[in-house]
């Protein structure tokens, strides 16, 4: 695996809802195997950027490139193929409530692979083991706790062995220990699977613990103020806003 190879690139990305500009001129590169953090204050458009990256919302101008291939400029069919290599964990899990955990994980496998029902169940059981939910195959989402839902959502995101995992606020609503365990899990999965990880978060603890690349969005100037390793940005970025955010408002 070549670590220097760019996996995701954003070029002059501008996002807007109608005439309302959210962010403009975003430009960043994510290498293969990076844990890339999208950060910034509330309402700066972090989640919107994620939506554009996973194909839920189209950008106003600019494009996202996966392995140098344009994402939004390509055909719908091509985009569907690219999307199969994504796994997404939504903020509250977004598990389908009418299906058991095993069925939640199995749906994508059923749709996109030729595996039989027994094999799908086996894979689902394995994915649940990975996230520490062994034995919970036949539970419905409303029968498990919030933290378990997140982990089950992660198991579902990993169903198709994705190249890129997207996380929307993974530690929101989790206690510090569960949040730490989830961070460790993300790191461990990145190490063993070589997956590129993109995370929207403003949890500073997570940002420094797992992030090795990032983009900082600013709601005032409506553009990115910084991109790079968050630990370095905290200590030595010339922009005060960036340092202040990363030092919890205590920057000198």
């Amino acid at each position, binding site marked *: 695996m070549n670590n220097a190879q760019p996996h995701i690139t954003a070029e002059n990305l501008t996002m807007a809802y109608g005439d309302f500009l959210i962010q403009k001129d975003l430009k960043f590169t994510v290498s293969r195997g990076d844990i890339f953090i999208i950060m910034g204050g509330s309402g700066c458009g972090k989640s919107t950027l994620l939506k554009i990256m996973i194909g839920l919302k189209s950008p106003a101008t600019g494009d996202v490139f996966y392995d140098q291939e344009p994402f939004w400029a390509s055909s719908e069919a091509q985009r569907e193929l690219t999307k199969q290599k994504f796994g997404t964990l939504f903020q509250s899990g977004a598990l389908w*409530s009418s299906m058991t955990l095993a069925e939640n994980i199995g749906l994508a496998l059923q749709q996109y692979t030729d595996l039989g029902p027994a094999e799908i169940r*086996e894979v689902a059981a394995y994915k649940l083991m990975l996230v*520490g939910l062994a034995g919970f195959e036949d539970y419905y989402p*409303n029968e498990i706790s919030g933290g378990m839902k997140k982990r089950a959502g992660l198991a579902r995101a990993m169903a198709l062995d994705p190249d890129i995992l997207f996380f929307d606020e993974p530690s929101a609503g989790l206690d510090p220990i569960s949040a730490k365990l989830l961070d460790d899990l993300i790191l461990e999965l990145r190490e063993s699977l070589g997956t590129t990880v993109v995370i929207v978060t403003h949890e500073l603890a997570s940002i420094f613990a797992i992030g090795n690349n990032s983009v900082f969005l600013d709601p005032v100037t409506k553009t990115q103020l910084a991109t790079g390793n968050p630990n370095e940005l905290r200590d030595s970025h010339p922009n005060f806003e960036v340092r202040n955010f990363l030092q919890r408002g205590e920057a000198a």
Partner: protein
Amino acid sequence: MTKAALQLNDSGQNRLLLSLSGDWLLGSELPSPGPVLDRLQQSPKPASLSFTAQDLGEWDTGLVKVLIAIHRSATANGIEVDAEGMPTGAKRLVALAFAVPEREGARRVFTKKGFLERFGEKVLAGVEGARELLTFTGELVLSCGRFLRGKATYQRSDVTQYLQEAGAEAFPIVSLICFLIGMIFAFVGVMQLKLFGAGIYTANLVAVAMVREMSAIMTGIIMAGRTGAAYAAQIGTMKVNEEVDALTTLGMNPTDFLVTPRVFALIVMMPLLAVYGSLMGIFGGALVGISMLDVTIAQYWAQTLQSVHLNSVFGGLFKSIVYGILVAIAGCQQGMACGNSALAVGQSTTKAVVMGIVLIVVSAAILTVIYINLGI
């Protein structure tokens, strides 16, 4: 792509060596771990199991899931597993998968229930449902008392909105359905009554049927499908989002806040809609009657007027109020009893509509018998 292979070597001294080769990708043809699992259970039991993966190509979940099955069986048989030889990523994943032991008692065991057991459970559920409905009705009555005395907490703007939704916005569909029902009645009436020269009595048939029964029933059923379903879905979703709990923690009674204003809106709007529905039905019937029979508008109108007594009008109005209450109760009760998922909201909505319609039809039958005995 080379074919995946799994080879077991007994290297003596009770040590087993498992060599993995080829590309282990999910969806391609993978060797079954069956023979390896069998060997692990045979005696003499090997003391340890190790791996070599020199000729291993690409791999994904397909490999890890087999390794996990082997690892589990080996551990269960007391065989020491030396994971060193596994590819690094797979070794970590296997370790991760076994990092959190399965929680005791978590796994579900499905037992097949006998017919009697299932039947009994259904009966008990039915009894429980009836009890819940009664409790709900009781709470509603108490809440209505507070509402009338002005002691209930609710938002006035909500009531206006419910009135708008249950009343004005239902006009088009009530117009259409009642108009067509009136026309259908008139068609049947004309065809049959003409046979013995009583065609003009079509006016009686349409007017009495619409005013006494049909308008209220049709409006009730429309409301069950429109408003009752909406109530169940709104309150059910609020329950899923814990909005109902939020009201309770603020010391507000959810029945006062959510249910009574909705019931009130339907009690006010149902009679109005029923009266309007009757007029639309009579109008539809008149169109058919006048065009198919040899009568003037004045004759038809006079016939209609003398056929409808005030008793029938009040009887119809009373029925429409009863149906309105029943539809609102069915909708709100199902919403409040809703479970905690999107699926449950759908089930509650379905139940609300079915229950609303059943209650309407049953109460229509009962009320009709009572009316006949009272001579209304």
